[in-house]
Structure formats: C-alpha cells, structure tokens
C-alpha cells in the first residue's frame, strides 16, 4: 500500500491554513472592532462577515478532526497539553458566535454583544497564538501521553506568539475591510492595516530570531550549509511581500492588501513548517510515528479527495453570492 502520510500532511496543512486565513480575517474584524470610531462601523464590520463566519469556523473542526484521523497520537498528546488555551478559545468563540445572532435582534443589549464580539475574537486569537507558541516549543511526553503540567504551555514565548497572531489577524481583517467597504470606513481600514502590518512584521522578525536561539535544531535547519542558500527564498520573498503589502495599503487596488496579507501568512506558515519538519509532536514524534492505521487514512482520504473539491466549489459560490461592496448604514436600523 502506498504511504499516505505525505498526502495527509499536505491535506491537514491545507485545512489548517485555510482555517487560519478564513477565520483569521473574521476574527481580525472582531479585533479591529475594538477601535471602530462609530457604532455604525461596528455593524457594518459584522455584516461583512455575517453570511460566512460559521462556514469559516468549520475549517477549525475539520482541521481538528483531520489531526485526529491522520495523526491520533499527536491529537492525544497536544490537545491535553494546551487544555486551558483550548478552553479559552472555545468559550471565546461561543461569545463571538452568538453575538451575531443576539446583537441584530436585541436593541437594548446591542453594546453588550458588541463587546462580546470584540473580546471573544480577541481572546480566541490570543489562545490560538498561545497554542501555536506551545506547539513550536514542544511538549513533555512519557510513553504515548502528555506528561507535563497544564500550565507548561504558558511561557513568555507562547504569550508573545499570542500577541503576534493578534497583529496578524488584524492585518487580514483590515485587508477584508478594504475589499468590502468604501468611504470613511474604507480609509480607516487602510490606516489600521498599516499599523497591523508594522506590528506583524516586527513579530515575524522576533519569532524568526527567537526560535533558532531557543532551539539548536531549528538553527541548524536554517543556518547550516547548503540550507542557508536553499531556504533563502523564504525570507527574501517575505521581505518583498511586506513591501508590496505596505504600498498596497497606501494606494493599491482594493483587493491587493487582502492578497498581500494572505501571502504573508503563507510564507510565515511555510517558515514554521520548515523549522519543525518532520515532527508533528515537536521533540517527540514524527509524522510517521504518530500516523493512524493505513486503512483509517485511506478511508477518510477517499471521501476527502472527492468531497473537498465539491466543498471548495460551493463555498466559493456562497462567497460569490455575497460579492461586492457592503452598503453601510442600511439594514437593521
């Protein structure tokens, strides 16, 4: 039987990346809504994602279940290790999600659910960033289980990656707003995007220096010969995309900032993957060691190969139905 691990690695990588992009921009809208200057803006920001947010969040479920299917050992070690960040994320996502349903209809409590949306998005992002940081720094493992304390995942590094992800999602959210809005809100989104871009670039730089300093294996991966040359395109492309994002936010076409932000995420994502390859539980298990039975991988792969293209087509269609600029100020007033 052919080795399905590389296929599942790509598939899972794609699902997680799609989640980061899609829920990233709508969590980013929530983060930005803290700073909206008018109440009407908050309404418009939420309206711009109301028909699509629950579809975007479905990628989180699929990513989690994909990890459980393809690499159950990794799921069984990593998820308990990040028990409290996951709890925080789930509860924050609850507040943020119901805010869509509760705020339209509850005029009296509108500002309360606006706060739930903003803080829910912020804390869910922070928690995801902490999970990312904890993942990069690795876990204490004994046998087939996590053996550390549930507080191990809270380190200066993971808190920093939490803040970094806030900046990154805000950048994606600003890109989406530039695409979907016009007028005063549009101009504000371009400005907010530039602030978020600077913070994101600072964070990328800091993490790029911090990880090789913490972890000799990662330093070896990037700075040994000939990797230094072979992997050089990643930082170089990041610098070019960063420049493009800056100019796009200043005066580019409306689609450009969002595209540039997505490319920046792709490059950062590739950077992390290169640093950790081939580990799925850093310092403990490789992708192959944590893989499920070939029959398990084959069974879900069969459906995924057939259904994922169909899903991408109808999800794309639903975005197409709601294309175009948002009309600010009409609706529930």
């Amino acid at each position, binding site marked *: 039987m052919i080795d399905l691990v590389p296929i599942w690695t790509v598939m899972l990588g794609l699902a997680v990346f799609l989640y980061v992009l899609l829920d990233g921009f709508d969590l980013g809208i929530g983060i930005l809504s803290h700073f909206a200057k008018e109440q009407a803006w908050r309404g418009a920001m939420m309206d711009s994602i*109301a028909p699509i947010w629950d*579809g975007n969040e479905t990628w989180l479920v699929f990513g989690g279940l994909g990890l459980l299917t393809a690499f159950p050992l990794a799921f069984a070690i990593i998820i308990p290790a990040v028990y409290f960040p996951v709890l925080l994320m789930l509860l924050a996502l609850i507040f943020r999600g119901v805010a869509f349903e509760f705020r339209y209809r509850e005029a009296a409590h509108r500002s309360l659910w606006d706060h739930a949306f903003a803080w829910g998005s912020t804390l869910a992002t922070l928690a995801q960033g902490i999970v990312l940081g904890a993942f990069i720094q690795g876990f204490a493992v004994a046998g087939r289980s996590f053996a550390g304390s549930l507080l191990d995942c809270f380190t200066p590094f993971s808190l920093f990656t939490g803040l970094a992800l806030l900046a990154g999602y805000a950048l994606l959210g600003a890109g989406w707003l530039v695409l979907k809005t016009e007028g005063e809100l549009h101009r504000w989104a371009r400005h907010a995007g530039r602030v978020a871009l600077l913070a994101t670039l600072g964070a990328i730089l800091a993490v790029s220096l911090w990880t090789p300093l913490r972890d000799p294996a990662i330093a070896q991966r990037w700075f040994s010969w000939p990797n230094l040359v072979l992997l050089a395109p990643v930082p170089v492309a990041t610098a070019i995309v960063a420049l493009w994002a800056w100019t796009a936010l200043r005066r580019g076409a409306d689609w450009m900032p969002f595209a540039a932000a997505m490319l920046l995420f792709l490059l950062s994502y590739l950077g992390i993957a290169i640093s950790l390859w081939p580990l799925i539980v850093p310092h403990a298990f490789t992708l192959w060691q944590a893989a499920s039975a070939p029959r398990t991988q084959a069974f879900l792969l069969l459906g995924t190969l057939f259904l994922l293209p169909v899903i991408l087509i109808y999800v794309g269609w639903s975005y197409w139905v709601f294309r175009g600029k948002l009309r600010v100020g009409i609706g529930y007033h």
Partner: protein
Amino acid sequence: MHLDPVLLSRLQFAWVIAWHILLPAVTVGLASYIAILEGLHLLTGRALWLAISGFWTRIFAVCFGMGVVTGIVMPFQFGTNWSRLSDVAGDILSPLLGYEALTAFFLEAAFLGVLLFGRKLVPPWVHFAAALMVAGGTLFSSFWILAANSWMQTPAGYEIVDGRFEPADWLAVVFNPSFPYRLLHTVTGFYVTTGFIVIGVAAWLIRRTRFGAEGRAMLSMTLWLLSLSVPLQIFLGDQHGLNTLEHQPAKLAAIEAHWQTERRMPLTLFALPDEAAETNRYAIELPLLGSLILTHRLDGAVPGLEDFPRDARPPVAIPFFSFRIMVGIGLMMLALVVTSWILRLRGRLFAPWFLGACQLMAPLGLVAVIAGWVTTEVGRQPWTVYGLLRTADSVSPALTGGDVLLSLLAYILVYLLIYPTGLLVMGRFVRAGPLGQDAAAPIAGGQREAPVAALPRRDGEAP
C-alpha cells in the same frame, strides 16, 4: 476533599453535550420543516407559506448559530479530557467524525448564508435548493455522529492491534448492530420534538388572534406530521429496546431495575432501586408485561443485573427513572395526537382547551430527548467502548481534579449565560409573529426584504 478527574470529566461532557443536543433536536426538525414550507411556497405561490417559513427561519438561525459554537466544543473534548480514548479508538472514530464535517458542516454553513441572507440575491428555486441542502446537511450530520456513538455502544468491524482499535471492515464499523435503530429513533425523536414546539407556538399565535391564519395553518399541518411520527417513534423505540436487550443486556437490566434473571418478568411501573441490597423498594408491578414488552413473548427470559459482576454494572436509578420520563412523555404525546384526530373529525381542532394543551406540551420533546440520552449514556457505563474500554481508562492522564473543576465551572457559567439569552431572543421573534420582526421594512414585489443586515450592493445598483 479529593477531586476525581474522571468523574469531573464525565460531568463536563454530560454538561456540554446535554445543552448542545437540544439545538440539533430543534435544527434537524426545523431545517426539514423550512424546506417543506419553502417548497410549498414555490409550488403554490401563497404568501402564507413564505410568512411561516420566514418566521421559523429567524428562530432557526439563532438555534443554528448556538449549535455551531457549542458543537465546536465537542470534538475538542475528545482531546482535552479523553485523550486515552482518542489514542486507543481514534483510528475508528475519527474518520466518522471527519465525514460529518465533510458531508454536513460545510454544506449547512455554506447554504445557510444563502438561506438567511440571499433571498433577494438568487432565483427562488436556488433559495429552495439552499433550504434542501441545509436540511440534508442536518441529516448527514445525524448519520455520522450517531454512527460514531453507536460504534462505542456496540463495537463491530474492528481488530485490536497493540492495545489499540484498528478498522477491519468499515461497513461493519458504520452499520454496527445498534446504529440503524439509534439513528431512526433519534432523528424521529428530533422531528417529534420540533413538531411539538411548532404546535405550541402555533396555538399561542391562534389564541392571540393577530396571526390566526398562520397559526392555524401551522397547527393543522404539523398535527398531520405528528400523526405519522409519534406512533412511528413509539414503534421505533420498541425495536431499539429489543436491540438493546440483545447487545447491551446490562443496560436493559438497569433500565428495568431488574436484578434476577427470570421468565414471566413483571413490568415495574415505579420503584426505588437499592443498588447495595440489589433489590427494589416500594415497587409497583404489573405481572407478565415486562417479558411481553421486552421479548414480545409472555415467558421470555430477561437477564438480571446479578448476572453481571458489580464492576461491570451501570448505575441503576438514573437510567430507570430517565427511561420512565421518556416513555411517559411519549405516551402523553400519543394521547394528544389521538385527541387531535377526534377533534378534527368534529371540526373543533382549534378548541381553546386543546390549544392550551398544545402550549403546555411544547417543551416536553426536549425533556424526552435529554431523558433518552441520559438513559443510553448512563446505561452503557462503566464503558466508553462497550465491554472493551473502561471510562476510567479513557481520560487524559495529565489532568488533575482541580484542572477539570476549573474548566467545568467555566462551561457552566458560560452556558448559563448563553442559553437563557438565546431563549429570550427567540421569545422576541415569537412575540413579533410571522410578519413582525421588521414589519415597517419596505415590502417589494409581495416579498418582505430578507434580513437585510448583510445585503451587499451589486455593481450598478444605486447605493
């Protein structure tokens, strides 16, 4: 005080799933109901069906949103609290859940946006197709999640390799012995639950007189649907019981608080089961009926709890009472449906006392769903994978009691805030009535504006 991470993890799972299951109980039924209404509107062009569909779609949206976010909690429970189960049984359970996401979650989410916000943006038949897709999604979702649950209750098609379950035959895994019964019994239960909520709300609308036409249409139509589904549900429940006797006899013995194996078993209507003394106190029994109901024979043998070692028995009192609550509600529902036939024959379907009864019974389906769920889940203890993997061996090893207590309290607080608020929001929709939500909104072409909050502007259209 010693805090047991296993018990607390069980309580946490029970808490988050009991609240979550209420939402699919309503959304599975409402999605199909809305699809029927949209179809009727497309066929007849009557505005009445559209008004009713819009009314329930607003309520559906709230339930669905809450269902999505409380549903995301569920798969993560397998990782945070039940990581041993994930490691040992992940090879079998995870693809079933994966297929739920692939075939159901994406379908529901993508087409719900169009159903809620897209009426003005797509042709009517596409809008109807979106309603069908959402309804289909809820049913696919039930299929896969109940396949996974049923496999844990009656495992099949597996082999054990190095202490882990691995798949041997996927068809046998999915269509394990209890799955067809559980699927039909649960989905029909969801339809009945939704039906009783619909007739309760319809009765209230009729008594308020302002939306009498809509209320009468809803009540009459839904009572026809219940006339089919309530008797069907009782038949399916009986079949599911026979299946449980065959495959999970200890669960069935606990449900009946039945201690000694015997032929000609009586039916225990009420008792206080005493697990220490292995007997029942204050029992009220009807002779022979137990064997008749459970085996469909007067002298059928039913195994008792004493046949099982004490550490392989489920708790008795909880499934005993929860089962009686579920069956009692089922019989009350049947009585109401039969009453509706008599009243319909006499042309008095909208008699005030009957409307009052419909209103009182509106939430009972939800109670029955929880009672049924408690029966089947407590009844399969002390196992997560029946007879093979103990609940105590399934929990994440790294957890301390304090960790789980903290997370359980957090879930309790958040759910106690979210659910009453959701109920309040839905109550507002009900009070506003079928045309009420934004009655002042412009009416274009005989159609009310869709919930316009997210209507994007098309190119060339005036802002």
